[in-house]
């Protein structure tokens, strides 16, 4: 008899395949239009280029499983806390009840939540890893994302390994109201313990990394790196424009802007991230 775990895994794999195809807009045809430069790219070329536009270098968003495949050594990943699930506890209804929104997000992405956490090896080095997924309710931070991040950090302290988190989020999940806000403290407090234990946290920002997530763990990396052109900031650009009643300068809140203003250690192209992480892990963990 199949266990729930096996059932989830199978469903996840089925959905993953479906999502990857949908994401590249290939309903039978093999060409994709770049969102940024509008050039037409052969989808297999895009895939081979790690979903980075071959013409302009625009970094398409990745799902958490796509990111995992690029980052972790083959067959080295063990997932933590896969059965921690969100619930509609307030309850909260906007254009649909939160419970329904969670169901739809699961159907669309095959995921239970906006983050996958666990341990893996990167270049042979064991590390705790968390990978957020923007396609699940905008990568929003709710109780489960907060709990999984906190458990990841606490477990990494026990295992004496670094923590690496790939951020992709629009911010706190409104449907969980004040509980989402509290996750900012929970995760930051766990990072204080990680620091005290002498272990490093490497934060990798991807497009977008905003609001409640950037105002908590994302900006607390011992080293903070970002993919090129990622939106990394606090307030949404439209809110800022409405407040100051001015148009924002080009490049505002992009990773390069954040670096110029002193809050980003490096901008790293997707293809170079794994090697960069390996160098950093070795720097921190060598005896």
């Amino acid at each position, binding site marked *: 008899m199949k*266990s*729930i*775990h096996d059932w989830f895994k199978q469903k996840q794999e089925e959905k993953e395949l479906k999502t990857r195809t949908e994401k590249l807009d290939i309903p039978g045809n093999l060409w994709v239009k770049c969102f940024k430069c509008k050039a037409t790219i052969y989808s297999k070329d895009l895939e081979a280029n790690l979903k980075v536009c071959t013409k302009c270098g625009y970094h398409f968003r990745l799902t958490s499983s796509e990111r995992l495949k690029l980052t972790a050594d083959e067959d080295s990943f063990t997932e933590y806390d896969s*059965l*921690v*699930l*969100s*619930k509609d*506890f*307030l309850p*909260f*209804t*906007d*254009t649909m009840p939160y419970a329904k929104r969670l169901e739809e997000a699961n159907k669309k992405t095959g995921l239970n939540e906006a983050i996958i956490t666990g341990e893996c090896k990167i270049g042979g080095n064991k590390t705790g890893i968390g990978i957020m997924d923007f396609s699940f309710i905008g990568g929003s931070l709710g*109780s*489960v994302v*907060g*709990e999984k991040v*906190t458990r990841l950090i606490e477990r990494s302290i026990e295992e004496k390994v670094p923590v690496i988190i790939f951020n992709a989020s629009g911010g*706190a999940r*409104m*449907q*969980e*109201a*004040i*509980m*989402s*806000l*509290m*996750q*900012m*403290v*929970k995760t*930051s*407090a766990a*990072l*204080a*313990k990680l*620091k*005290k234990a002498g272990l490093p946290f490497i934060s990798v920002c991807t497009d977008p990394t905003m*609001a*409640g997530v*950037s*105002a*908590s763990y*994302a*900006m*607390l990396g011992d080293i903070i790196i970002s993919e090129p052109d990622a939106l990394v*900031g*606090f*307030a*949404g650009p439209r*809110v*800022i424009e409405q*407040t*100051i009643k001015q148009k924002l300068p080009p490049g*505002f809140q992009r990773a390069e*802007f954040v670096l110029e*203003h002193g*809050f980003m250690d490096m901008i790293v192209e997707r293809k170079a991230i794994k090697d960069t992480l390996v160098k950093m892990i070795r720097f921190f963990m060598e005896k």
Partner: protein
Amino acid sequence: MEFEKPLLSLFKKVDELKKISKHDKIDLSQEIKALEERIEHQRRDIYSKLTPIQVVQISRHVQRPTMLDLVPRIFTDFLELHGDRNFADDPAMVGGIAKLDGTSVVIVGQQKGNNTKENIYRRWGMANPEGYRKALRLMQMADQFNKPIITFIDIAGAYPGIAGEERSVAEAIARNLREMSSFEVPIIVVITGEGGSGGALGIGVGNKVLMLEFSIYSVISPEGCASILFRDATKAPFAAEELKLTAPSLLEMKVIDEIIKEPAGGAHTNVDVTAKNIKAALLKNLAELSQLSKSDLVEQRYKRFRGLGIFEELSL
């Protein structure tokens, strides 16, 4: 406020009677007293049935006591200290040293203005990154010299402007969250008005979090929620209900530890009573926290926030 309109006609009547009594030299004190009692009764009735959006209005009342209204009524020997030692002094965040019945403490908090001119100067209490960095340096001083920290929250949100991005208010808030969780002194947080999301939380990591009766604490304003999630700004009252942002709901969720009573009609009707109630709550909670060792304080604070989050967990 809109929901107090029923009282308006009664107030007018009292004024009329007082005028007549003076002009015609008749003793109308019985009638006036009876009317005033009716006003009080009706006000208590209104205030016992407030909807969340009405509470929001009270929390934002233009005469609601600000931090600098409350501080001289609660503390003695307050010395305001300025600057983040890095970039600037943010008028939206006030901090300094003071004495609470003889105990030296460090205080930080957001400061709104009492009139338009002041509000412009204070940026309506909406702090910039240097506000959080000033708060941090003062809290670090408290930690270093073993003094309790008391914070006052009243902010719609961190100011959503250019400075917030150029000087990373995100990093400033995040760092405050991490550092506050490690301080080895008692931290008591008092929400007096609007607890506006991350902007509030940046000085909100306490061993105890107290809230004035008609203050609010939310991940987003009802108006913001209505616009973004409901795509309809007029749905703010409904959003306020859904968000469960009033003190009783927050107490039930254990996000706050205690509700501090306001005078009948709201804090703006009597600053002295409001301050008295806050002071009593501070003294009580400080006495309790002073019993804990340094490591216990850190652990209690960690556990307090560690336990916040509602989810379910399947087992295999």
